[in-house]
C-alpha cells in the first residue's frame, strides 16, 4: 500500500468559506460597467407557426433598449449539441410552450421582464403531440423526422424466445416514471461581455464550459479563440447544467453582440421549470425468465423515453439506459429495444443517473417479482445472479477486478438486518412497515457513445512561493471537484494542501475536456492533473534530494516525502524551499496534462461491445412505513453501500451519497410535474414538491473500495450511483410492507391506496 498524505482524507472543502460567508460570486452576482439586462419572450403554446413578433408596446417601457430575434444571429442558427435540430431562436415554428422566441434587452432586469411580457407574438397553432407512446403510433402527427423517433438502440444476445419458452418462471410488467426537475437552487444565468476586437467573454453557471464555447462561437459566427467562457460558482447542476446553459449563454451573447454592452440574463424559477432540461419521463415493458434454480435466463425490454421537442441529449441518455436496462445480472439471453420519442414538450436531457433510474425502477421492481415467483428471498435471489468479476454484461463486456457488487449486497443485507425484517413485515394499527432492496451498476464516464469527448486536460503551475495553481476543464458545481482535485494535485507534488488552488474553468486555459457529467471528473481531470504534475514532481523530488544531500543528510535510507516535507537521514526541507530552489535552477515548473479514456466499443447492429471503461456499483435497502388508511409512505431509513473505487475525500463522498439518496427518494415519492394539453401546470416550488428536512430519512452508508488501476489513486466515479437504486428499493419496500405493487413513479399515496383497495 502506498502511503498517502492527502488522498483518502476528509480535508476541508476549498470553497466552503466563500459560500458560508456569502462571498461566492454566482452568475447573478456578477456586475459590469454599462451592463444591460435581458429577458426571454416565450412561446405560449405547445406548437406554433410564428407569423410576426412585435415590440410596439414593449418599446414604451422606460429603459427598453432592443428586441433580439433570429435575424440578429450572425452565425449559424443551430445550437450544436448532439444532433443539430434546436435553433438558437426559432424562425418559423416554436415547438414547445416556454421555448424562447425572442429576447428583450433593457436597462434593468425589471424593465426587461416587463417589456418581454408586452412583446406580441402573432401565431397560428399547429397540431401537436404530447404523449411519447402516441408519438410512436403510425397515424401520429409528425413533429420530428419521419416517425417522431429521435433515437433508437438494440441489444441482442443469445436466443431470447427460446429461453422464455423453456423458463420455469417468468414475469412481465409495465412501468412508468414521471419527469424530475433538477431544482438546483441557483437558476440558469449568464453574463456576456463584449471584448475589443470582436471577442466575447461569457460568465456562465454551467457544468460544461466547452459546450458553452461551442454554442457561443456558433451563434456569433466568430472563431473559438475570440470567445472565452468563465464558469461562475455554480449553484447545483445534477445534469441540469449540462447542455442548456449553452443556450442561455448564447442568448446573452447575442444580446451583448447586438448592443455592444455587457448583458446579464438570469432565469426566474418559473421559466427555468418551463424551458430548461428535465429527467425524461420513461415507460418500459420488461420481462424476465428464470430456470427452476432461480437463475435468470433471459430478459426482454422495451424502453421509451419522452424526449420533448428537440433531441438535445436524448440519444446518449437513451444509450446509457439501454446498456444498463437489464440490471447488474448475468443474463445469457437478452433482447432490448429502446426509443426516444419526440413530443411538443420541454426537451428532456441529463439528470443524475442519465436514463438509468427510469429503467432501473422497472427492472429492479420486477426482479423482486421474479424472486417471489421462484420462491426466493429478494436478496438471495440477487446474490445468485449478480455480476461478478470475470462475468459478462449484456453487451458482452467481461468485467475486470474492480467489481464489488456482491460484497455491497452482503454489507447492506447485514447492516439493515435484512433477513429478519424482510421475512416479517410488521403492521401496527394503520401503519405497515417493510423493507425493500435494489442493486445497481453504473458505467463510469461517457462510454462508447461519447468516446470522442472522453478526454480531459489540466494545467499545473507551481509558483515561486510554493503555492500551486491548477486549471482543469471539468467544473465544480457543488460536488466538491475543486477539493478532490486539489487533494490529487497536492498528493502528486507533495505540496501542502492548503497551498493548492484549483480554479473554476476558464476555457482559454485548458483544452476542451468534455462535459462535467457521467461521474467522470475525478477520473478524467484527476488523471490529467497527475499527468501534468508528474514531470514537475520529478524535478521537485530530485531537487529536494540534492538539497538534503547538500545539507549533509545520509542518503542510504532513501528520501521520504509526506505532507509537504521531504526528509532524509534526519534532515528535512519543506516543499516551499524546494520550489524556490527549483526556480533558482530555472527548472520548468508548469506543465499541461492530458488523459484520454480507454477504448470502448458498441456495435449498433446488436449492441455488443465494451460499453464503458469501468463500472461503479451500489446496493440499497429502504425501510418504509405505509399508512394503510391514506397510502402515505414515509422512508425511515436507507442503507446503502457503494463501490466507487478509492474514496479521495470521505466526507465529501458521504455528502454525495446522502444528497443523491434524498434526490432519488424525493423523485420516488413526491416530485410530480404535471402537463395538461402540452402546458406545464405546476412550474414552481409551491406545487412541485421536493423533499425537505422533514422528509429526510436516516442514512447508513458504507463504502467498499475496489481499486481501479486506471483511476487516479485508484478512484472510479461517485456522483450518480447513489440516486439510481433508491426508487425501486422504496417501491419494493412498499410491496413488502403492505402488498401494494406500484408501477409508476412518483409512488403517490393515491396509487398505493388504489393498489391496496385491489387487495
Amino acid at each position, binding site marked *: 500500500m502506498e502511503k498517502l498524505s492527502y488522498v483518502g482524507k*476528509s480535508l*476541508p*472543502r476549498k*470553497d*466552503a*468559506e*466563500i*459560500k*458560508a*460567508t*456569502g*462571498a*461566492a*460570486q*454566482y452568475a*447573478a*452576482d456578477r*456586475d459590469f460597467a454599462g451592463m444591460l439586462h435581458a429577458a426571454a419572450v416565450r412561446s405560449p403554446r405547445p406548437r406554433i407557426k410564428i407569423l410576426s413578433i412585435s415590440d410596439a408596446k414593449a418599446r414604451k417601457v422606460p429603459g427598453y433598449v432592443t428586441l433580439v430575434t433570429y435575424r440578429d444571429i450572425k452565425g449559424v442558427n443551430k445550437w450544436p449539441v448532439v444532433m443539430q435540430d434546436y435553433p438558437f431562436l426559432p424562425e418559423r415554428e416554436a415547438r414547445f410552450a416556454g421555448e424562447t422566441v425572442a429576447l428583450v434587452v433593457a436597462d434593468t432586469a*425589471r424593465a426587461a421582464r416587463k417589456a418581454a411580457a408586452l412583446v406580441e407574438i402573432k401565431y397560428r397553432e399547429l397540431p401537436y403531440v404530447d404523449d411519447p407512446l402516441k408519438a410512436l403510433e403510425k397515424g401520429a402527427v409528425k413533429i420530428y423526422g419521419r416517425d417522431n423517433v429521435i433515437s433508437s438502440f438494440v441489444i441482442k444476445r443469445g436466443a431470447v424466445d427460446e429461453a422464455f419458452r423453456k423458463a420455469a418462471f417468468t414475469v412481465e410488467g409495465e412501468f412508468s416514471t414521471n419527469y424530475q426537475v*433538477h*431544482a*438546483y*437552487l*441557483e*437558476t440558469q444565468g449568464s453574463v456576456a461581455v463584449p471584448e475589443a476586437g470582436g471577442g466575447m467573454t461569457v460568465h456562465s453557471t454551467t457544468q460544461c464550459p466547452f459546450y458553452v464555447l461551442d454554442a457561443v462561437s456558433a451563434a456569433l459566427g466568430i472563431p473559438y479563440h475570440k470567445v472565452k467562457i468563465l464558469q461562475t*460558482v*455554480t*449553484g*447545483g*447542476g*445534477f445534469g441540469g447544467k449540462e447542455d442548456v446553459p449553452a443556450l442561455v449563454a448564447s442568448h446573452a451573447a447575442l444580446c451583448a453582440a447586438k448592443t455592444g454592452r455587457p448583458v446579464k440574463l438570469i432565469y*426566474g*424559477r418559473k421559466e427555468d421549470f418551463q424551458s430548461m432540461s428535465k429527467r425524461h419521463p420513461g415507460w418500459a415493458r420488461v420481462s424476465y425468465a428464470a430456470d427452476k434454480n432461480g437463475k435468470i435466463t433471459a430478459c426482454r425490454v422495451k424502453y421509451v423515453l419522452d424526449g420533448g421537442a428537440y433531441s438535445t441529449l436524448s440519444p446518449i441518455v437513451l444509450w446509457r439506459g439501454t446498456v444498463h436496462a437489464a440490471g447488474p445480472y448475468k443474463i445469457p439471453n437478452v433482447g432490448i429495444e429502446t426509443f426516444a420519442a419526440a413530443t411538443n414538450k420541454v426537451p428532456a436531457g441529463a439528470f443524475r443517473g442519465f436514463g438509468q433510474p427510469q429503467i432501473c425502477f422497472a427492472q429492479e421492481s420486477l426482479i423482486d417479482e421474479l424472486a417471489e415467483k421462484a420462491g426466493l428471498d429478494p436478496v438471495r435471489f440477487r446474490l445468485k445472479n449478480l455480476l461478478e468479476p470475470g462475468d459478462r454484461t449484456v453487451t458482452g463486456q467481461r468485467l475486470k477486478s474492480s467489481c464489488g457488487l456482491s460484497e455491497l449486497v452482503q454489507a447492506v443485507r447485514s447492516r439493515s438486518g435484512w433477513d429478519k425484517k424482510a421475512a416479517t413485515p410488521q403492521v401496527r394499527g394503520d401503519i405497515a412497515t417493510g423493507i425493500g432492496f435494489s442493486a445497481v451498476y453504473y458505467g463510469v464516464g461517457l462510454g462508447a457513445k461519447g468516446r470522442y469527448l472522453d478526454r480531459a486536460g489540466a494545467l499545473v503551475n507551481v509558483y515561486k512561493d510554493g503555492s500551486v495553481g491548477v486549471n482543469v476543464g471539468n467544473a465544480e*458545481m*457543488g*460536488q*466538491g471537484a475543486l477539493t478532490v482535485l486539489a487533494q490529487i494535485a497536492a498528493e502528486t507534488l507533495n505540496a501542502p494542501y492548503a497551498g493548492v488552488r484549483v480554479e473554476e474553468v476558464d476555457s482559454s486555459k485548458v483544452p476542451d475536456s468534455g462535459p462535467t457529467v457521467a461521474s467522470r471528473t475525478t477520473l478524467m481531470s484527476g488523471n490529467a492533473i497527475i499527468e501534468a504534475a508528474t514531470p514537475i514532481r520529478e524535478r521537485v523530488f530530485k531537487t529536494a534530494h540534492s538539497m538534503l544531500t547538500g545539507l549533509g543528510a545520509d542518503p542510504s535510507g532513501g528520501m521520504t516525502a509526506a505532507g509537504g516535507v521531504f526528509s532524509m537521514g534526519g534532515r528535512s526541507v519543506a516543499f516551499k524551499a524546494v520550489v524556490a530552489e527549483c526556480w533558482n535552477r530555472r527548472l520548468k515548473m508548469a506543465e499541461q496534462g492530458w488523459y484520454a479514456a480507454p477504448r470502448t466499443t458498441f456495435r449498433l447492429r446488436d449492441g455488443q461491445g465494451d460499453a464503458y471503461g469501468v463500472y461503479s456499483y451500489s446496493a440499497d435497502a429502504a425501510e418504509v412505513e405505509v399508512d394503510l388508511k391514506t397510502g402515505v409512505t414515509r422512508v425511515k431509513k436507507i442503507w446503502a453501500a457503494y463501490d466507487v473505487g478509492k474514496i479521495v475525500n470521505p*466526507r*465529501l463522498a*458521504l*455528502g454525495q*451519497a*446522502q*444528497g*443523491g*439518496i*434524498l*434526490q432519488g427518494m424525493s423523485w420516488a415519492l413526491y416530485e410530480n410535474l404535471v402537463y395538461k394539453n402540452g402546458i406545464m401546470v405546476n412550474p*414552481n*416550488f*409551491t406545487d412541485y414538491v*421536493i423533499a*425537505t*428536512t*422533514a422528509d*429526510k430519512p436516516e*442514512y447508513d452508508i458504507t463504502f467498499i473500495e475496489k481499486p481501479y488501476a486506471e483511476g487516479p489513486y485508484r478512484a472510479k466515479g461517485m456522483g450518480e450511483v447513489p440516486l439510481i437504486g433508491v426508487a425501486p428499493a422504496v417501491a419494493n419496500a412498499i410491496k413488502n410492507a403492505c402488498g401494494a405493487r406500484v408501477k409508476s413513479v412518483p409512488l403517490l399515496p393515491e396509487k398505493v391506496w388504489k393498489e391496496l383497495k385491489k387487495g
Partner: protein
Amino acid sequence: MRPFALKCKVNGLAIEREIPSSRSLLDFIREDLGLKGTKEGCGEGECGACLVLLDGKAVNSCLMMAVQLHGKELVTIEGLKGRDGGLHALQKTFMEEGAVQCGFCTPGLIIASEALLRRKPDATLEDIKQELTGNLCRCTGYEKVLSAVEKARDNRNA
C-alpha cells in the same frame, strides 16, 4: 410615484436612502446595497435562499417590500460575525460538518438557523428540522446541515 425616504440599520450601519416604494426588499439588498450574499432561488417565498434577519427574525426578503425595513434593523449573511469578528459559529460548523456543497442555499440556511438559536438556544433536533423545512437544499440530503446546527447549538451552550 414619489420615492420613499428609507432610514434603517443594515449590518450595524445606519443607512438613509431614497428608494422607489415598489422596490422589493431582496432587490434593495442585492442591487441597491450590492450585498450579493442573499440569494434569489424562487422569488415566491418557497425556497428560503433569500432569508435575512429583520430585527432578529428570519424573513423571506423576496416577499417583502424595502419600505418595510423603515426604522428596523437588517442583518444579512455578510453581517453575521463571530464574537472575535471572524467567522460566525454557524458558518464554522457548516464548514466543519460538510454542510456546504453548491452553497446557494447556505446563506439562507445559516440565517434561519441563527434566528432559531436566538429564539430557542436549546432547540432540539426536531425543532431544527421543523424550522428548516422552509429552506430547500438540493445537494446535501440535509443530514450534515442538521448536524452543523446541532453542533453550533452545543458550542454556544457549552
